[in-house]
């Protein structure tokens, strides 16, 4: 049993770590707020799910840690996209606009979208 | 002398001094409270570091653990944190009142207004 679970857990953890790194890179390097939000908002949910899944597959004596991890996972799945949504909306309402690729000036939007 | 065994203490000193610096060098009262908070947490970190035993585990009794970290600092700091937020909020309330009375939270402005009276 553990001969299957252990590699599976490692794969999940590795994949999650990789996603985290890519998200962090985007968060650091991208030009405007929305691109950065996109970079870490998208990777974050999947990476969190993968890492928690990887931890759940680790062998333990009792099932309680797995249950708690499941709760954390459920909560993150609910709250993380909501937080991203709230952030994007608040930033838009506060007048933050997408920028061009170099991050120098705002992208011109059709008049209806302002 | 092993540098690593003093690293925690030095980090505490640096944190404490950064907090101290904010308290005396920044004129904004909210900023001063933030500085005070940093100062306060540096004391928390000192206590908790002192309570750590290398190789020990959290002070929750269990049959298969023999070495625990010291629970006493944990108790002291646990209550201190909640007391800290309560007292900080008193400070913040005072800041709001000062702002209502003087129209500013900058210590220099407030002193200037006091001298004019």
């Amino acid at each position, binding site marked *: 049993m553990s001969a299957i679970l252990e590699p599976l857990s490692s794969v999940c953890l590795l994949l999650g770590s990789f996603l985290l790194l890519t998200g962090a890179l985007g968060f650091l390097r991208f030009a405007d707020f929305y691109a950065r939000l996109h970079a870490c908002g998208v990777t974050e949910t999947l990476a969190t799910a993968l890492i928690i899944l990887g931890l759940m597959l680790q062998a333990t004596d009792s099932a309680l840690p797995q249950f708690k991890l499941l709760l954390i996972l459920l909560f993150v799945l*609910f*709250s993380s996209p909501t937080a991203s949504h*709230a952030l994007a909306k608040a930033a838009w*309402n506060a007048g933050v606009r997408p920028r061009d690729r170099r991050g120098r000036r705002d992208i011109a939007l059709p008049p209806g979208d302002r | 002398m092993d540098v*690593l065994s*003093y690293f925690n203490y*030095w980090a505490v000193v*640096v*944190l*404490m*001094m*950064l907090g*101290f*610096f*904010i308290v*005396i060098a920044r*004129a904004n009262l*909210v*900023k001063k*409270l*933030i500085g005070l908070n*940093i100062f306060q*947490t540096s004391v*928390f*970190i000192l206590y*908790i*570091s*002192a*309570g*750590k*035993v*290398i*190789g020990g*585990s*959290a*002070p*929750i009794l269990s049959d298969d653990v023999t070495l*625990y*970290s*010291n*629970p*006493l600092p*944990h*108790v002291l*700091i*646990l209550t201190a*944190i*909640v*007391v800290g*937020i*309560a*007292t*900080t*909020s*008193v400070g913040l*309330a005072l800041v*709001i*009142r000062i702002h209502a009375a003087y129209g500013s939270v*900058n210590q*220099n402005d407030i002193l200037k207004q006091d001298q004019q009276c």
Partner: protein
Amino acid sequence: MELLVNIVLLILLVATAGALVVVRGLLASTMLTSVYGLLCASFFVTMDAVDVAFTEAAVGAGVSPLLLLLTVAAIGRGEPRPVGALPVLAIVLVPVTAALLIIGTLDMPPFGSPDAPAHTHVAPRYLQLSGEEIGIPNVVTSVLASYRAFDTLGEVLVIFTAGVAVLLILATPGQRGSARPRYVPDNHRDPHTILQIVSRILIPFILLFALYVQFHGEYGPGGGFQAGVIFASAIILYGLLYGLPTVCRVVRPAVVEWLSAVGVLIFGITGVFAMLSGRPFLDYSVFADDPVTAQHIGILVVELGVGITVASVITVIYYAFANQFETAES
């Protein structure tokens, strides 16, 4: 590995504090304070101080930045002002103090050594005997609610007093208590439907988790202080999304003010109850014949008092601040 995590976290803490020195904007400072709280709490986890980490997570990363933010919002962000004269006094004073303190640390026992003076007195007794005497696994709770319960009563009183002080300071004339809302937020323009619905699903679970923390504090990390803060933060979340008037209808300010006193009274009466039977103050042995059961009951009651006081004081403080903020500009 443990040491590596410890060192990295401390360096990050110092860096955040350094950034707090440099950053001038109050909103930016508040966000950094939140990060600082999270880092602090992670550090406490690596130091095995699970209960402390619990508290610091709820307070340092949750409530404290929110209160700071409410204050900043009530007083306005403040116009950027020209950088003043160099703080000569601070620049001279801080390195001198730092040097003195560092010399002081050289006399400290090496970090983590098991035979440091702090570990040889009192603490071993707690660790060895609390299992038999109190009968609960979490030594921190035993010490907090039984061995040093009188100390804890003092702390709870300080928290209660702070709540009263905030009410006194922020109460405006002609208004009994500042927590009575006057400002009705304009929710039509921006209804926040998604946030409201998701939070409505999550809030009951947060409250449930707070209760779990409250009553599980004897067996794992948790207890009245932590549960109180988590409970209050659920109320704060509700208030932020539905507006102060709504949350005041659900959790009436008068009731909360009253409850903050009730919690202290529960704690105090537990102590007096023992005195009535001719035992010392806060001696739990009067509650049952079996000393371990008596300790259990005593700790449960006392922790309940702590939880009620902490939750209601933080709610009271939130009401007072939120009211200031919502009436500030109108």
